[in-house]
């Protein structure tokens, strides 16, 4: 399969190379060799707790802290990665295991997998050797791209196995027997021939003093008792008691609160705060200030008071070139760009353009479009930062990575002319993230305010209105797809031209010290190439269509729209070929047995082909993403008045090796429902340069009454783990659009597929656009 150079990989590799040059200049390659990329060394004892390695801390009472340096934002990763350690250590997976996000940025925690795209278990060669050390030194720890299991399951297996062997060695010394006579079970080291046993807790301190084994032996898969079994999540007991600490819940003594107002038109600067004296005099207000020339913050002794005061702010914003822009203008720009010559060529096999030109009569062509959408994480955007009198800073943020916190705090304190001598980064529980919390915006703002109020922690919370209307968005996008069909109706050439604002360029402009530019931005074109379909001539091209709207990472990025485009289009090709959409895909997957198995499974689950009553329809879609393959069948009912309901979604997924099957299922359920909301309801529109939506009443979400049943099956796989956090959302919109076509004969080529009508308090219905 031809490799498409990922722009993200490229830019991160660029960062790595830059960092390498720097490090080499300072300390040379010899210094890099000292970087502990495995985290197995440096055991220590402090009181009752014995640190065996960077991932495992054992206490004398037998309880264990497992360090999981990935953000828990709902995906169950703290449980999955703890299971891997428990498996290798022969620890019972029970309440004695506690998972923490470590504050230390140990090099072993680095998410170098995302940059180098090499699995840790397959890592070799000089580029990986240098890359993982440099990224480790940079503290590049990030939770995203559905990569947490792929990036850490092997390193944490090794850490667990190493800890187990250290415990055995400590027991061998204590019992004066060869370690080969010892086995481990349920948190004990056993000497079966003498019937003696030692509790892990009592061996912890001695084990921590030992040198870890150079190459710990991993447990063979045949002996696994935890991996692959349904385990209850470690974070749920607190979550049903209401006690977990989300960023919103962080409490620091003497803390003050802040709220913020961003410009209605993105990019507008503050000219002046018209009534600053009035707002400063309101109850509880401690400070009113312009942040980075662009926003206005109100600080108070209570967030509610600060927010009440902020509603009274009168701010004069500078005019911008975008003050008259509307969604219609942006849409016209996108569509016009599809006719501009010389787009960026992402990928080419054969001469798709020529084949299509030579087969004009059998060529299918269609244009699709999606709007901007918001993330709308349930936990509003927030950050808590303190800059202490001694010059140190500490931050508590629901963030997708501590490097974001570190850089964000540096940026914000820099606006105030302060450079902290040290920054402690605490990643809290995240109330949803979906890519939104990989941005540094709120962190820098909070740090600026903290620098103004030195010695007091400032908790900045964006009100929901700022999140929906002044935040970051999934890009609007369009595509023109063309395919020439051969004599048997199957495509002989495929040509995709995507038009969108580059995701990575917008993200980099806010979060990175350099910008790779838009061309070849993999995040924006992913899902257009359909490599798994056997087509001999294929071309993928892209057009960058900038706008003033800031784009953020958004659960599944380009796949969230491109798979809607492409899998709708495949149905259009099937229709032209007078073929069944399932059979058509099966024929195109003749060289892709893994995909074919997933497709066949979902068709079987949904009883594809069984007759449906009039007004009902069934649609199918499939995608490969994040090294997983996912297919869904949606069933819809469309009433005569156009009211549309998604009744059921069937989902089959091959995510490779499964650690915790129940949580893979949960991610597919949740992903599909996230996908239903975005397919049916979600639309951010722009008028006079500003977003028109403000809160959940006009940016609605599925509720229980609208939510379809989701039936998930995991397809057995002998591949290593793939990603699970994002695939669930990817095929949903296309499956629904295809189902609506089956039900009505109407091909809907833009999202959302329906208009949301309010029918009562917190009640809506979806009606097809007329």
């Amino acid at each position, binding site marked *: 399969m031809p490799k498409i150079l990922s722009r993200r990989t490229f830019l991160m590799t660029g960062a790595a190379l830059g960092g390498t040059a720097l490090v080499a200049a300072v300390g040379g390659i010899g210094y890099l060799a000292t970087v502990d990329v495995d985290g197995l060394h440096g055991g220590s004892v402090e009181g009752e707790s014995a640190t065996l390695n960077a991932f495992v801390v054992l206490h004398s009472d037998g309880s264990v802290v497992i360090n999981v340096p990935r953000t828990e934002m709902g995906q169950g990763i703290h449980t999955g990665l703890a299971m891997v350690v428990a498996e290798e250590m022969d620890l019972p997976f029970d309440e004695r295991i506690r998972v923490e996000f470590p504050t230390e940025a140990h090099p072993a925690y680095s998410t170098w997998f995302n940059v180098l795209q090499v699995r840790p278990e397959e890592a070799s060669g000089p580029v990986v050797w240098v890359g993982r050390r440099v990224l480790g030194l940079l503290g590049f720890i990030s939770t995203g791209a559905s990569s947490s299991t792929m990036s850490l399951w092997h390193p944490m297996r090794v850490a667990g196995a190493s800890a187990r062997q250290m415990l055995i060695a400590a027991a061998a010394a204590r019992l004066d027997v060869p370690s080969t006579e010892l086995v481990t079970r349920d948190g004990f080291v056993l000497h079966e021939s003498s019937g003696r046993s030692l509790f892990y807790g009592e061996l912890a301190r001695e084990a921590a003093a030992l040198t870890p084994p150079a190459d710990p032996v991993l447990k063979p898969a045949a002996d696994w008792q935890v991996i692959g079994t349904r385990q209850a999540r470690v974070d749920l007991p607190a979550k049903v008691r209401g006690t977990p600490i989300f960023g919103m819940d962080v409490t620091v003594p003497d803390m003050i609160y802040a709220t913020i107002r961003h410009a209605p038109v993105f990019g507008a600067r503050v000219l002046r705060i018209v009534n600053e004296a009035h707002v400063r005099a309101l109850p509880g207000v401690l400070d009113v200030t312009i942040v980075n020339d662009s926003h206005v913050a109100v600080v108070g002794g209570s967030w509610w008071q600060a927010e009440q005061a902020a509603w009274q702010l009168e701010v004069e914003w500078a005019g911008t070139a975008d003050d008259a822009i509307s969604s219609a203008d942006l849409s016209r720009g996108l569509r016009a760009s599809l006719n501009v010559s010389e787009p960026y060529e992402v990928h080419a096999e054969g001469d798709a353009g020529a084949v299509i030109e030579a087969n004009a009569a059998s060529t299918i062509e269609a244009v699709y479009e999606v709007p901007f959408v918001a993330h709308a994480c349930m936990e509003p955007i927030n950050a808590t930062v303190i800059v202490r009198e001694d010059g140190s800073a500490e931050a508590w943020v629901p963030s997708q990575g501590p490097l974001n916190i570190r850089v964000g705090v540096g940026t914000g304190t820099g606006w105030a002319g302060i450079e902290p001598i040290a920054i402690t980064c605490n990643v809290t529980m995240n109330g*949803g993230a979906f890519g939104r919390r990989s941005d540094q915006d709120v962190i820098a703002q909070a740090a600026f305010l903290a620098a103004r109020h030195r010695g007091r922690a400032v908790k900045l919370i964006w009100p929901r209105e700022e999140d929906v209307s002044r935040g970051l968005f999934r890009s609007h996008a369009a595509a023109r797809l063309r395919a020439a069909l051969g004599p048997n109706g199957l495509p002989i050439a495929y040509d995709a031209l995507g038009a969108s604002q580059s995701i990575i360029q917008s993200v980099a402009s806010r979060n990175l010290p350099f910008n790779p530019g838009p061309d070849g931005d993999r995040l924006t074109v992913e899902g257009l190439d359909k490599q798994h379909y056997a087509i001999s001539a294929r071309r993928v091209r892209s057009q960058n269509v900038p706008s003033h709207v800031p784009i953020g990472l958004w659960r599944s990025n380009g796949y969230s729209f491109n798979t809607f485009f492409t899998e709708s289009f495949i149905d259009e090709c099937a229709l032209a070929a007078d073929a069944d959409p399932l059979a058509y895909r099966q024929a195109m997957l003749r060289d892709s047995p893994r995909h074919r198995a997933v497709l066949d499974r979902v068709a079987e689950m949904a009883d594809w082909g069984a007759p449906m009553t009039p007004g009902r329809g069934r649609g199918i879609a499939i995608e490969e993403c994040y090294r997983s393959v996912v297919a869904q069948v949606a069933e819809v009912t469309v009433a005569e008045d156009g009211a549309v309901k998604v009744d059921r979604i069937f989902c089959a997924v091959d995510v490779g090796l499964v650690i915790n099957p129940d949580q893979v299922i949960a991610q597919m359920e949740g992903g599909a429902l996230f996908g239903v909301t975005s397919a049916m309801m979600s639309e951010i529109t722009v008028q006079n340069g500003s977003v028109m939506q403000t809160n*959940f009443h006009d940016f609605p979400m599925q509720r229980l009454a609208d939510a379809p049943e989701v039936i998930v099956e995991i397809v057995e796989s002998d591949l290593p783990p793939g990603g699970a956090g994002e695939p669930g959302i990817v095929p949903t919109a296309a499956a629904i659009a295809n189902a609506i076509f089956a039900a009505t004969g109407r091909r809907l080529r833009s999202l959302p597929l329906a208009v949301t009508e309010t029918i009562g308090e917190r009640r809506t219905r979806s009606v097809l656009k007329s």
Partner: protein
Amino acid sequence: MVAFTVNNRPADVAVDPDKPLLWVLREDLQVLGPKYGCGVAQCGACRVLIDGVSTPSCMVPVGSIAGASVITVEGLADEDGSLSFVQRAWIEEQVPQCGFCQPGFLIAVTELLQQNPDPSDDEIDAAITNICRCGTYPRIRRAIHRAAELARD
């Protein structure tokens, strides 16, 4: 001064009577289970029981609840810490993902099952209008039925 009880303990607060109960709970009483999600009674993350009635606390002025009994998610378990039927069902069905909205669901479902010990799917749809962005709805539905079973057995 407004006096009421929170999870059966007396609470006296000297604040602006217009301050919403949600923010009194979170800022003045350090009861952090109820969450701010939207501020306009749309999402339900802030729901608490006020004299047994599930209510979005983000829009209830604290001055209006003098003498009332407020139960938050922290008050659903027994004094000895044992979980309520609803909480147990939530664990058994492994409902929460990010968990931020769940305090509001647990409150709303607690009231529903007090009113209607064995609700049908339609009755559940009518009663439970909270928002969950992670999409835990299929498990919520199963857990409501499970909680009804647990309460019966």
